[in-house]
């Protein structure tokens, strides 16, 4: 039973279609991320769920309650939707201290003084801000400002939390820490999270499921593992993690790297669902390529860069450059040597115009 439902949602800004026929089903208690490059429509979608933008077509409902519908001409403004939201730049009010910031949504709802104080304190406690209750935002750090935003959002005990790139303004160490904190809060309170980010490692670390978007169109929905190991198309493959795209040809039941047939065939099992046509694209991760003495397609080590734990190789197969990353311990080749390459889990796609 899906809790958050978007059906055939479309949004246009003038001539530009920001979101196109989007369908999403989110379970209750799920941590659901929308991931994609800037301009892909993820933030617009979040804002439609929040109510700051209204859809042009389609319907949005949460927990069976209709929020917005083009057919029924219905639109519920944000202040009535009862969600918690955390913004990228925190949006913490500088003229109010921490307590007043967190208490604000409770005050709006006209609760009694004692209840406001109690629930505010509870939220502050859950986000570790007890020491800063009377402090003002300009007196505390970025991470703590983010916690104020979180506390303010959970104070009303929302069923859904909307997070708009909340961690991108924090430094890397803090980002990791806050990820865990958000997950912990979700565990304690049980709300559903809709999370927007352009950072794929963040999406993967946090989410139960990820929706990858591009130019307003949904590309793939799945668990982080699925998205990484079984990307539905070339864009997703390149967007998540490092990648190599090699133009390849199929001939006599074997696959060759285009224009480098002399180096031998790509040694791997021919998958059954190979795209049609003599020309295809072979995609593989730098960390999923073996370098051997004589087992595989022939190549030449053009560059070897020491990166500490990892050694980064640039290997030439004919005129095509392939990037290989090996751990320090298994990096046995030196620059200028000949070697052979074996692709562990290659993916195959239609020959396409190169995705930048």
């Amino acid at each position: 039973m899906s809790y958050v439902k978007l059906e055939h949602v479309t949004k246009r800004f003038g001539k530009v279609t920001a979101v196109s026929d989007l369908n999403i089903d989110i379970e209750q208690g799920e941590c659901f991320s929308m991931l994609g490059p800037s301009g892909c429509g993820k933030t617009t979608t979040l804002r439609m769920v929040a109510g700051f933008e209204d859809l042009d077509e389609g319907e949005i409902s949460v927990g069976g309650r209709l929020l917005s519908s083009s057919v029924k001409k219905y639109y519920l403004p944000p202040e009535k939707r009862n969600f918690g939201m955390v913004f990228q730049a925190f949006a913490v009010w500088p003229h109010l201290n921490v307590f007043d910031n967190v208490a604000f949504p409770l005050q709006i709802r006209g609760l009694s003084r004692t209840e406001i104080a109690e629930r505010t304190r509870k939220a502050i406690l859950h986000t570790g801000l007890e020491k800063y209750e009377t402090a003002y935002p300009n007196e505390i750090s970025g991470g703590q400002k983010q916690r104020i935003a979180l506390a303010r959002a959970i104070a009303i005990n929302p069923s859904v939390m909307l997070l708009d790139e909340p961690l991108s303004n924090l430094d890397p160490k803090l980002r990791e820490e806050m990820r865990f904190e958000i997950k912990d809060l979700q565990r304690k309170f049980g709300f559903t999270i809709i999370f927007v980010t352009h950072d794929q490692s963040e999406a993967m670390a946090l989410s139960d499921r990820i929706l990858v978007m591009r130019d307003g169109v949904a590309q793939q929905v799945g668990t982080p593992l699925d998205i990484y190991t079984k990307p539905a198309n070339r864009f997703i493959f390149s967007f998540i993690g490092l990648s190599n795209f090699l133009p390849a040809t199929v001939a006599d039941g074997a696959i060759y790297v285009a224009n480098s047939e002399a180096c031998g065939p790509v040694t791997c099992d021919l998958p059954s669902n190979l795209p049609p046509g003599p020309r295809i694209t072979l995609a593989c991760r730098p960390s999923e390529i073996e370098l051997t003495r004589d087992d595989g397609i022939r190549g030449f080590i053009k560059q070897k860069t020491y990166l500490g734990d990892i050694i980064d190789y640039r290997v030439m197969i004919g005129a095509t450059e392939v990037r290989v990353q090996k751990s320090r311990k298994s990096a046995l080749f030196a620059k200028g040597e000949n070697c052979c390459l074996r692709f562990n889990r290659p993916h195959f796609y239609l020959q396409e115009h190169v995705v930048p």
Partner: protein
Amino acid sequence: MGIAEILLALSVLVLVVVVAIPVLLILGTAFFVDGHFNIKDVVQVLTEPDTYEALKNSLVIAAGVTLFSTFIGVFFAWLVSRTDLPFKGTMKLLFLIPFMLPSFIGALAWKMLLSPRSGYITKLLMSSFGLESAPFNIYSLAGIIAVETMYLFPFVFIQVSGALERMDPTLEESARISGAGLFTITRRITLPLMMPSIGAGALLVALYSLAHFGVPAILGSEVGIYNIPTKIYERIYQSGGNFSAIRTATILSTILVVSAGVILYLQSFILKAGRFQVISGKSMRPVLLKLRGMKIPLLILSIIYIAITVVLPTVTIFMVGTLKTYGLEFTAANMTLDNIKYILFEWKMTQDAIWNSFYISLAAALVTMLVGTLISYVIVKMKVRGKFLLEFLGVLPFSLPGTVIALGVILMWSGRFGVNLYNTAWIILIAYIARYMAFSLKSNSAALEQVHDSLEEAARACGATHWQALKDIVIPLIKPGMVAAFFLIFLPALRELTTSVLLYGPKTRTIGVAIYTLNEDGETVYAAALASVALVIIVIGQLVIKRVTRSKLEGE
């Protein structure tokens, strides 16, 4: 290293001569008689009914102007920045026009329209409604407050609309998602966050009003309503410039300085309180309020406001300037261009005035620009101890009213140190330099700060000496700032009245002085004609600035 110290010393010297000494002389003259500290005379002057009245009026006017300017400024700023009012861009420009026009010319126009005996609107209203006496008396505190408000509200408008436009929209969005409706958001979030800008604008208005000469002079002096600057003027001219009058003037000036100081202190206080980081990094536009039914009425209101406060006075000036005699009806037979021809091509007095204004302002702008650049360079780029002294001296005159600077310059350059420049153009020039140095410093400092050290250092690494780096890198990059400083000073100096009215001699009238004295002498039509010419010059000047600054920006 030696060169840096020399430059520092030179800069300090310039600022001391131009700024510090005049101020000290004023204080000295006010509080010291024959070398002895004398507070008795000071108190006596302050408690005279005349001066006491002037002080009271100053405060009442300033308070009134500040109050109304704040309301009007905030209202229109909100209308233009936060609603879907149509033609917003045009409205914004139109609201800024009062900023460019000299308020004393506005006072002149309103005198012509609402003077109880001969004002055109007064006559119209009286005949339409069959009244026996004038419904409004423009020669009143209320009149002064109204006219000053019309020309000063842009201070508040600019601050608040700028802040509203740059405000981080998520601050309001997070309030919305927390459940607050528009009214609550405005009350609890938007307004409190705007307070620093409102405060800053309001204080600027108060500062300006306290120090203002033109409007109270035209609308108040005739009926015995004085504020401090007009009182100072009255005393000095009544006495023919004798020392006792000057002494009284310095005492009154001290009040001006103190009140200006208090206001600036308050302002820095408010600005510190406005440590809020409300400005967003992303360029997201704030969500606009849909006015719906109120859209057209509010648009009409804005247009009427602009029509009344900007169009009406300006048109009046131009039209009266073409009358053969003041008081005649506006018919084609009664209107002529002869007045304009006369003041431009035949009357020496007005020709001199125009010429004087041009070359004194030009010289002042040039000198201030160059000296300001040098001093800014020392402050921003050089590592010498004692820079704070320069900063302090540079900003000081900014807080001094034009009247005070004029007085200080009189005290210093009327023979005390062997040089007597009184009644010459030089004394006006020196006063302008003192008055506007702060603007030049601000503008040039800002430009210099944009030129990162690494740009100079990169040149050094390429083999350029310090001087070559200055010539090839720094100066080309600060040229726009210097040009901006030039115009920032040239135009205000061209049209100002407050300072030159105390310093002019028979041959050294400025445009502002000429208009004012023409009005005093009852030559209303000529005053209006000259005012029209002044307005045209100012508008052309503003357009030139826009063209020059825009092209500089694009050229980068």
